[in-house]
């Protein structure tokens, strides 16, 4: 009994997050029931929609890929106390840069594909250097600057596909990229593309960087306590600039992988807000690289599962937004849940008390 309790205590943040997510589902279930629908029926179609067959499963995975990479983008910033809310903009620029490299350049695949991915990453990374400069040199709060910088990026790509790049067909988009710049489909007839390997590499890279290298240790030290970092010879501004750059690179890479694996061109408004979702994904993933994969799977499944659910059970699609919102609310209310959790597993301390002391 004691060991079980200890285990639950040690994993407190993990379990609280799981409870928060479950709670969100219960609330949604109640809403469904209240509007005269059968929640269990809905769950059935939801799970079937997300993982019911090969096609659905691979569709889900293909959404998990950009969510994970973008989630890692937020994570590497946040671990160094850089709150990059501009991932959407960096992702769009990355997608555009990679699409341009993908259709203009003619090269063999083994070099073309890496080059186009790199172009995407660099575009995102360089764009993130603007808020980095604003933050470390001009002390401009990065949450404001990054959120604002989403707009120029969106409208710039919009402008490019509408006015500058010759339009093929009716949709505003760039021309298709060369075969050599595409991520191959892994299973014939499905959406599952080789971007899944890029995703795995990104996750392992982030974990390795943050927890196995001196650089990552320094980034985390900056994230937790800048004064102490400075006192111990860590160049705080440099590390933050690097975190911005890396975060932007990951965001750009997420966009490039979408282009190379799914759309094969830059399609105007192709991103259903992956950049914004990345923040929730990273936070629900507890800013842990592997946690991000799990939470991205959840949010990816939300996107595909709801589709089928709405078709078969007559529940409106807009519910995705609602469920998303409720999950976010529940996760944000974690502190309250934490209080109950602690009461069950720790005696009666309130979570607040723990925090107040630790301030």
């Amino acid at each position, binding site marked *: 009994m004691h060991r079980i309790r200890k285990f639950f205590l040690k994993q407190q943040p993990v379990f609280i997050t799981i409870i928060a997510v479950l709670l969100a589902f219960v609330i949604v279930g109640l809403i469904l029931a209240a509007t005269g629908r059968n929640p269990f029926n809905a769950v059935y179609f939801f799970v079937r929609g997300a993982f019911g067959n090969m096609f659905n499963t691979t569709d889900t995975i293909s959404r998990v890929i950009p969510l994970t990479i973008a989630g890692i983008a937020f994570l590497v910033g946040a671990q160094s106390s850089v709150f990059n809310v501009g991932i959407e903009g960096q992702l769009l620029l990355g997608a555009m840069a990679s699409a341009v490299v993908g259709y203009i350049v003619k090269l063999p695949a083994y070099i073309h594909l890496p080059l186009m991915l790199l172009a995407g990453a660099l575009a995102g990374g360089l764009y993130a250097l603007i808020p980095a400069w604003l933050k470390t040199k001009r002390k401009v709060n990065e949450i404001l600057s990054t959120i604002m910088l989403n707009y120029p990026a969106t409208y710039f790509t919009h402008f490019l596909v509408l006015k500058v790049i010759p339009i093929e067909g009716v949709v505003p988009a760039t021309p298709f990229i060369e075969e050599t710049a595409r991520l191959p489909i892994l299973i014939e007839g499905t959406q599952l593309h080789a971007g899944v390997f890029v995703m795995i590499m990104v996750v392992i890279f982030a974990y390795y960087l943050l927890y196995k290298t001196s650089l990552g240790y320094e980034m985390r030290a900056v994230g937790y306590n800048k004064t102490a970092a400075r006192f111990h*010879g860590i160049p705080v501004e440099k590390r933050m600039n690097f975190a911005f750059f890396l975060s932007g690179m990951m965001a750009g890479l997420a966009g490039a992988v979408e282009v190379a694996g799914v759309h094969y061109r830059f399609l105007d408004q192709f991103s259903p807000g992956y950049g914004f979702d990345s923040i929730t994904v990273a936070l629900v993933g507890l800013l842990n690289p592997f946690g991000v994969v799990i939470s991205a799977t959840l949010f990816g499944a939300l996107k595909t599962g709801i589709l089928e659910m709405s078709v078969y059970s007559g529940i409106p699609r807009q519910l995705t937004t609602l469920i998303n919102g409720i999950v976010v609310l529940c996760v944000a209310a974690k502190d309250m849940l934490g209080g109950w959790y602690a009461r069950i597993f720790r005696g009666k301390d309130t979570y607040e*008390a723990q925090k107040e002391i630790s301030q």
Partner: protein
Amino acid sequence: MAYILELHDICKHFGNVLANDHVSLKVEKGTVHSIVGENGAGKTTLMNILYGLYKQTSGEIFIDGTKVDIESPSDAIELGIGMIHQHFKLIPAMTVAENVMLGEEPTLGKVFLDLKKINERTLELSDKYGLAVNPKSMVEEISVGIRQRVEILKALYRNANILILDEPTALLTPQESEDLFRIIERLRKDGKTILFISHKLKEIMQISNNITVLRDGKVVDTVKKEDTDEVHLARLMVGRDVFLKPAPKPKKIGEAILRVEHVTAVNEYHHPVLNDVTFDVRSGEVLGVAGVDGNGQTELVKALIGLQPLSGGKIFIYDQEITHLSVKKMRSAGIGVIPEDRLQEGLVEDFSVQENLFLGLQRSQPFSNGTNINWGAVRSNAEELVKVYDIRTPNIEHKARLLSGGNQQKIIVAREIFHAPDTIIASQPTRGLDIAATDFVHEQLIKQRDAGKGVLLFSLSLDEIMLLSTRIAVIYKGAIVAVVNKDDVTPEDLGLMMLGGSYEHIPA
């Protein structure tokens, strides 16, 4: 005898750690009741339970003979309990009076602050207990000692009858401590009850009526002041005799390792903070820097590690000039530092104990090959230091945040002394340490000295300066006004010089 406060069999578990083990305590009204014990003995935990920050696992609390249930600090305040935290929770951009009244301010028609009344009431309270604070000064402009009084005022304004002071003197100068004791005496005479925690047994003997000794979470004994003395208390605390003894004479003093020449610096308002500072630290000696707090010590430490921009002067390690180098380069040139503010400067609280024990060394052998961390080396280093320095932690993966104050300090001291480069700058190295740990840290510093390193010691405690120093530099208004051999001065001489008094210079 009426007891204002009784604790019956209080237990507190943190996971596997038993921080309080059946603690029972009776506190008489109108007394100063001190609580002493080793680092990690459970003093702060017990006080936090009383103030409603933690809930005891078992046990009962009685106030004025009635059983009470304290669920939160607001319950505690309701019951007349006030706590003065070591890390003050004041708002710097507001005035003293506004801080005191915060949350319960008198208003005009429930909308506007009644500033006149706010100031008047603060002044009234301050005068009643001789706190001597100006209600209108901004908190950001007042000293640590005064800030503490503002905290006391806050508690008094909320009608506290029991005041908890957890290591209130750790951050104070000796003079400020004396002032605080006068205030405490006045509060006591007025019928307030004070719970007082300190590691300085001299203070305990000076102001207590009763003293409770904790060890490993258990009450060892509660004694009357008249029936005990410092030696006896120390024995009760640690289970053996400990005295702080003067350091043995240095074995061999060598050449100057650290040389500071005509260093000058100004603060952000262009006021001089370091004024033509010149001194050196030699191999095999401890150079103590004596001075009243706020005379440039903080800036000097920062200058020596590359965090204070200089407007003039030079700093050398041996013959290498290190002025204007980055912190990293100055450190690798051979400077190590124990910073004065452990939570802000010395530790990353959210790092584990083992991660903290190689902070600053994350790119040096054996912890790293420059790129990758060698976690095996990190672990064995942590295990060794935890053992040698007796850092009380359940395991080395425990977050530093969860350790007791003194044990956090031990992490910093252990890291910096164990991996000491040529010069160690030790700023308040024993702040918050119990007597045994203080003695141990003194020994370690002397060991480094005798290994041929130079130690630059900053301490607010003249006693500590006198115990450890080979030579003493006196700092006053940003300038080193004298450097003297320890054997040539008395604490009284030093006290005078620290206040700007002149002294016939004895060539050191």
